[in-house]
C-alpha cells in the first residue's frame, strides 16, 4: 500500500505555528547549508548530513562506489580510528546510521538534545579527514558484497526490480543498482573510493539538517564552530545523461528459484522541477493515491478484493527525484491467476484513468489523507528532517514540503487524466516478470506457462 510520504501546511487543524516559521536556514561561508527545524515536544535532536552524491552520479565500472564509501565513512579519520565514530555516538546514547540512494548519501544521529556537539564534531571531522585504510577497505568491501547477496542475489523480487530498472533505462544512471553490480564491487579499489570521496564530500556539496528541541541560533553557532573551518572545494560535475525517449514497450523475464511470480510495470514520467508543466508531478502523485492510497483505493478494492486477480498490488511514484522517475505498478497475482492476468487488469485500470475523470469523492479522500499525514508526520522529528534533506539534496527547496498539501489539493480530475494520457502509454512502458524456477535446481518447472507467457 502506498504511503503518502510528503505533505505540508496544517490548514488550520492545529494551533501550532505554521511549519515554515519553525524552519530556519543559514549558509556558512564554505557553502554548507544548515537547516534547523524546531520541535520542542521531546528533549531530543536528530542531526543529518546529506551529500549530493549517490548511484545516479556514478558511471560504468564504478557502480556502487557511493555506497561503498558510505560504509568506509565509519572506518576512521586521523583523529578517530576505525569504528570509533559508532562507539562514541553509542556511548553518548545515540542512535546512528547512514543510507545511500540514487540521488544522495545521508548520515544521521539521534541523540538527547545536549549531545548535538558530539555529532557535529564527528561529522565535520569525517567530511574531509577520512583515512580510508586499505586493510579496512579490503574487509569492508566483502561486507558490502554480503549485503548485495542478502538484499538482491537471494531475493527473487529484489532481483526482478534490479533487472527492471536496468531494462527500462537506456542512458539514465537510474539503470544501475545503488549497491552496484557484483563485478564492479569485485574490481573497485580503495584508491577509487578515495578519489570519489575527495570529489564529492565537501561542505559546499552538503546539507546539514537538524530537527528537535533546539534553539536555531545556537545550532548555527555550533555548526559554524565545527564545520566552519572546512574549506569550500571544487566538487564534481555530473553529466546530464538524459534518457532518450522510449520508442516501444520493453519486456524482461527474470528466471530465478522462487515459488510465486511477480510483476513490475513502469512508465517513464517526469519529476518536480523537470520538463513539463509544474502541476504534472503533483497530478502523478494524485494518480498514484487514487490507485493505491489505502485499502479503499482502486487497486485494493477492485483487484485484490473485487476480481481477486492480485494477492497484493502497489502503485508508486515519487515526484521529488533528481532525474525523471517512473510511475510504477507492481504486484503478485492471486491464486489461480497468472502475471498475464494481472498485467491485463492493471492495463484496464490505466485505460480507465485515461478515459473517465476520477470522482470528486476520490480526490477528496486523498486530500483528507494528505492533511492528516501532515499532522501525523510531526510525531517524528527524524521524518521531518528526512523530508528537508531529501528535497534539498535533489536540488529542490525544503519549502516544497510546506506547499505540498496546497499543490496536491489543487490537482483537478482533468489534470489526472492529462498526465495519464501523456505518460502512461505503451511506448513508454517496461514490464518485468519473475518466472519462478524450481527451488531444488534440478528439474525444469512444468507448471509455469500461465505465469510466463507475457512476452508478446
Amino acid at each position, binding site marked *: 500500500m502506498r504511503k503518502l510520504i510528503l505533505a505540508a501546511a496544517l490548514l488550520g487543524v492545529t494551533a501550532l505555528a505554521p511549519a515554515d516559521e519553525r524552519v530556519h536556514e543559514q549558509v556558512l561561508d564554505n557553502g554548507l547549508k544548515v537547516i534547523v527545524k524546531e520541535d520542542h515536544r521531546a528533549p531530543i535532536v536528530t542531526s543529518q548530513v546529506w551529500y549530493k552524491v549517490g548511484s545516479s552520479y556514478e558511471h560504468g565500472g564504478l557502480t556502487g562506489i557511493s555506497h561503498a564509501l558510505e560504509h568506509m565513512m565509519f572506518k576512521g579519520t586521523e583523529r578517530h580510528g576505525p569504528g570509533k565514530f559508532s562507539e562514541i555516538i553509542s*556511548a553518548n546514547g545515540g542512535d546512528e546510521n547512514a543510507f545511500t540512494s540514487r540521488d544522495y548519501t545521508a548520515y544521521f544521529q539521534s541523540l538527547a538534545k545536549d549531545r548535538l556537539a558530539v555529532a557535529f564534531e564527528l561529522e565535520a571531522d569525517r567530511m574531509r579527514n577520512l583515512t580510508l585504510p586499505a586493510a579496512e577497505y579490503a574487509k*569492508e568491501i566483502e561486507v558490502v558484497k554480503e549485503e548485495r547477496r542478502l538484499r538482491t542475489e537471494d531475493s527473487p523480487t529484489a532481483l526482478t526490480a534490479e533487472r527492471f530498472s536496468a531494462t527500462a533505462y537506456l542512458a539514465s544512471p537510474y539503470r544501475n543498482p545503488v549497491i552496484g553490480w557484483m563485478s564492479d564491487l569485485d574490481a573497485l579499489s580503495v584508491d577509487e573510493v578515495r578519489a570519489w570521496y575527495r570529489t564529492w564530500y565537501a561542505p559546499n556539496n552538503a546539507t546539514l539538517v537538524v530537527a528537535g528541541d533546539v534553539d536555531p541560533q545556537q545550532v548555527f553557532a555550533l555548526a559554524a564552530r565545527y564545520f566552519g573551518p572546512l574549506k569550500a572545494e571544487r566538487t564534481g560535475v555530473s553529466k546530464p545523461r538524459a534518457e532518450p525517449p522510449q520508442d516501444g514497450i520493453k519486456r524482461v523475464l527474470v528466471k530465478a528459484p522462487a515459488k510465486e511470480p511477480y510483476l513490475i510495470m513502469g512508465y517513464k514520467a517526469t519529476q518536480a522541477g523537470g520538463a513539463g508543466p509544474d502541476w504534472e508531478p503533483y497530478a502523478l502523485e494524485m494518480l498514484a493515491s487514487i490507485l493505491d492510497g489505502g485499502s*479503499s483505493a482502486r487497486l485494493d478494492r477492485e483487484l485484490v478484493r473485487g476480481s481477486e486477480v492480485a494477492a497484493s498490488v502497489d502503485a508508486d511514484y515519487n515526484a521529488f527525484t533528481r532525474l525523471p522517475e517512473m510511475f510504477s505498478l507492481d504486484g503478485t497475482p492471486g491464486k489461480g491467476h497468472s502475471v498475464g492476468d494481472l498485467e491485463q487488469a492493471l492495463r484496464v485500470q490505466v485505460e480507465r484513468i485515461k478515459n473517465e475523470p476520477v470522482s470528486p469523492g476520490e480526490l477528496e479522500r486523498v486530500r483528507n489523507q494528505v492533511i492528516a499525514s501532515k*499532522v501525523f508526520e510531526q510525531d517524528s522529528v527524524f521524518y521531518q528532517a528526512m523530508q528537508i534533506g531529501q528535497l534539498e539534496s535533489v536540488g529542490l527547496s525544503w519549502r516544497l514540503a510546506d506547499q505540498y498539501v496546497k499543490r496536491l489539493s489543487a490537482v483537478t480530475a482533468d489534470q489526472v487524466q492529462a498526465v495519464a494520457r501523456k505518460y502512461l502509454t505503451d511506448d513508454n512502458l517496461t514490464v518485468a516478470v519473475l518466472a519462478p524456477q524450481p527451488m531444488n535446481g534440478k528439474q525444469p518447472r512444468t507448471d509455469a506457462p500461465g505465469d510466463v507467457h507475457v512476452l508478446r
Partner: protein
Amino acid sequence: MSFAKYLTAPAVLLSSLLFAVPVGAVPNIQTWHTANGAQVLFVEAPELPMLNVRLVFNAGSAREDRPGVATLTNAMLSQGAGAWNADQIAERLEAVGSDLEVGSLRDMAWVSLRTLIRAPALDTSLGTLTTLLGDPTFPGPDLERLRKNTLVALGQDEQEPRTVGSKALYQALYDTHPYAHDPTGTKESVTAITRAELINHFRRYYVAKNTVVALVGAVDRAQAERIADQVTSGLAKGESVPPLAPVMELSQGRMERLDFPSTQTHVYVGQPGISRTDPDYFPLYVGNHVLGGNGLVSLLSEEVREKRGLSYSVYSYFLPMQQRGPFLMGLQTKNRQTEQALDVLMQTLRRFLQEGPTEAELRDAKQNLTGGFPLQIASNAKIVEQLALIGFYGLPLDYLATFNAKVEAVTATQVREAFQRRLKPDRFVTIVVGPTQNANTRGGAE
C-alpha cells in the same frame, strides 16, 4: 574524549506550557479499567491534534486451535463489521485520513488506529473501530480470499532463506509448545481453517478482560475514559486467559542443515530464553547489548563483521515473551565461509559467557541505553507501544520512570552470572540454510 556541552536555552515560553513529556521526565501514565474490565493506559499529549489508540489482546498464535487461526481472525476484523463490508470500512476510515493497522504474533494480537482529533475524523474513526471489535461479521467470501492470499504469502516465505531459517528455528526450539509454529500457519493448516474456528477464537480471546487499551493523544482524562468505554463497549466481558504452558528445556544440542539455492548461507543459533517478567531481565538485556544487541558496536559485530568482513548483519537478542521467548543469534555469509563464521559466532559467545563484559564495555552499553532513553519515548507512536507492552505483560506502571535506574544498577558480575545460568551452548539449536551441495549453488560471484 571530551566534548563541549551544548545546552539549549529554555525553549520559547509558550511551548514549555505545552510539554506532555517535560524535559528529563517520563510520560505520566494514568490507568483504570473500563466498566467491562479492560485495562486502560493513557498519556495525555496535547501538542498535536491527533490520537493513537492501540488495543492489544492476549489472542496470538499461542492461543489458537489450528496454526493460522489467530492471524486470520485478526485480519478478518476489517473485512466486515455491522452493516459494512470491507470496502465500506476502508472508505469510512480513509475518507477522514485515519490509519488502521492490525496484526497478530505469537503472544499478542493488536488493532491500532491513528486519527485526527477534528470532526468528523475522530467520531467516524472511533465509531468504526467500535463496530470492528464489537460486531465483526467474518464474511465467508472474504475469508476465502484471505485464505488464498495467505497461501501466496506462505509460498513467498518458502523462497526467502530468512523465513525458512527462522521458522525452522522456532520449530526446533519449541517442539510441542504453542510457540513452535509460525503465526501464519502452514499451507495444510490454512487450507483447513473454518469460519467457525475464527469466530470461536474471537469469542474466546477478544474479550474485555483479555484486552489492554493504550491511548495517547490530545484528549483529557474524561474524554479518554469515554473513548476507552466506547471502543470496548462491544466486547464481551469474558475471562482473562490462563497462563500458557511452560517451555521445556532442550535436552541436547542439534544442528539442522536445510538445502536452499542461495548464494549466502543463513545461520540461526538459539535456545529458549526468558519470559518478560524474568528477574534476570535487566542483566540479560544490558549484557546482550554488549554481546550483539547494539548494532555495529557489539562484540559479535566487531568479531564477525568489522574484523573479518564475514557478514553484513550479525546480531543476538533475547525476545522475552509470556513464557520463555527465544535467545537468538544470527548471520548470513557466502556459502564457503559458513563454518568459519559459525565458529567465530560461537567462540565470541563462549568467551562472553566465560568472561562477561569488561567494565568499559558495560559502562558504554549503559550509557547508550540510559542516554538513549529519551529517544524511546520521543513520539506518541512510541509511547502508545510502550503502554501496550506495559499493560500486556503486566509490567509496573513506573517501568519507564525506573528504566534507567535499573539499567544503571546492573553489574558485570550479574551479567556474567545471568548469562552463565541461562545460556547452555552445548544445548543450542543451530539452523543452517543454504546449498548443501555445490551443484545447487546459483550464480553469484564468489
